[in-house]
């Protein structure tokens, strides 16, 4: 899977005015979309947990948050490298960038809240509330920043229809498919791992009770 990603990354795209740095785009955009996908999973499973109190929902929320946080980190690392050559600065306080940074901070806080709680139902419910508030905050932050700060013409960079060379569209679609597959797989494995951990703990408890 990763090999395919690297191939598409090195072979297909042709040069553009921005040069080689533009290639980051083929990673940056898919990971940004996957981050939104993963945080969408957190939002839905948090709502699910609050209404049913079923731990299976919480495992999905946790997995979504961890994987989404990872994707968001990749987006925030690759973005400035590209911005440095395209805009001349590493960072600007534009709406899209600020929103992504805040998203990253909120889910960092979310993961901290989870790990510093006692792991009981109350912690999980609190995490769910933060997961929901965090996800709802995204459009709010976006609009509040967009309202006041000047908008950058970046939306034009991100319209996929506007790609001049067909190879670019192919490469982007391929990367998008591969990254989303990777992310879905990561989330699913994380859920499975959490499930196994819970079963291990239960079995250990039963074993100790049987011994005693």
């Amino acid at each position, binding site marked *: 899977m990763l090999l395919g990603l690297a191939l598409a990354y090195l072979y297909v795209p042709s040069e553009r005015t921005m040069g080689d740095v533009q290639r980051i785009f083929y990673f940056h955009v898919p990971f940004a979309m996957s981050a939104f996908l993963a945080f969408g999973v957190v939002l839905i499973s948090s709502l699910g947990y*609050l209404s049913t109190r079923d731990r299976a929902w919480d495992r999905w929320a946790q997995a979504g948050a961890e994987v989404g946080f990872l994707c968001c980190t990749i987006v925030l690392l690759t973005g400035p490298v590209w911005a440095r050559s395209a805009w001349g600065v590493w960072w600007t306080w534009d709406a899209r960038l600020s929103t992504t940074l*805040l998203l990253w901070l*909120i889910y960092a806080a979310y993961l*901290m809240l989870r790990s*510093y709680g006692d792991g009981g139902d109350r*912690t999980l419910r609190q995490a769910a*509330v933060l997961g929901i508030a965090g996800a709802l*905050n995204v459009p709010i932050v976006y609009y*509040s920043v967009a*309202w006041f700060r000047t908008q950058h013409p970046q939306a034009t960079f991100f319209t996929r229809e506007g790609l001049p060379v067909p190879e670019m569209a192919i490469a982007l679609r391929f990367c998008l498919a591969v990254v989303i597959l990777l992310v879905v797989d990561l989330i699913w494995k994380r859920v499975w791992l959490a499930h196994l951990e819970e079963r291990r703990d239960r079995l250990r408890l039963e074993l100790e009770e049987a011994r005693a």
Partner: protein
Amino acid sequence: MTSFWNTAFAVAAKDLRLEGRSREALVPTGFFALLLTVLFGFAFQSEPVDPRTQAPGLLWAAFSFAGVIALQRSFALERDGNCLRALLLAPVDRGALFVGKALANFLLIGLVEAVVLPIFSVLLRVPVAPCLGPLALIICLATLGFVEVGTLFSGMASGTRLRDVLLPLVLYPVWVPILVAAVESTGLVLSGRPLSEAREGLILLAVFDAIFLGLGLLFFEHVVEE
């Protein structure tokens, strides 16, 4: 509906009475805000800060930092002696508890802000008097948003091991949209523009206040109940 408000006012009155006797939130919070102002004064030595670009940022940084101290106190009170459990045993709407706690926090933090604002104005040489009315409106709206988010999250953080550290970590990212609107409209007002120019900011503040009020009413019970 009346019982909702009765509960909310009873909770707020309880918090305020406790504060009136102990002054454990008011004095440290006010002193901390004062210290921050002095620190800013030293950091921007001798130059008067620019009322359009720097003063609003410094003012809201001071209020955000100091507000967290008041919030931490608010739930530390409930934790000591398991008061929160007693409060939750009462057969009342959790939304009313939220509104009561938020109301008490609002009055406390508002009082601190009212004291700190003139000191801020004098020490950092920012003329506040000509635009006091509009500024008060902005501060009220933004502080309302701050206590709504803050009450929800301090209830949340109080149940964890790292509560005092965790509160600002979860609070600040969510509080950013209100901060942005508050700083922007404060800047306009401080630089002598009429309030009508800051109308967009005020509308945004009001909308965010409504959204976070809804979040608090909906989710407070999940955050505090054991």
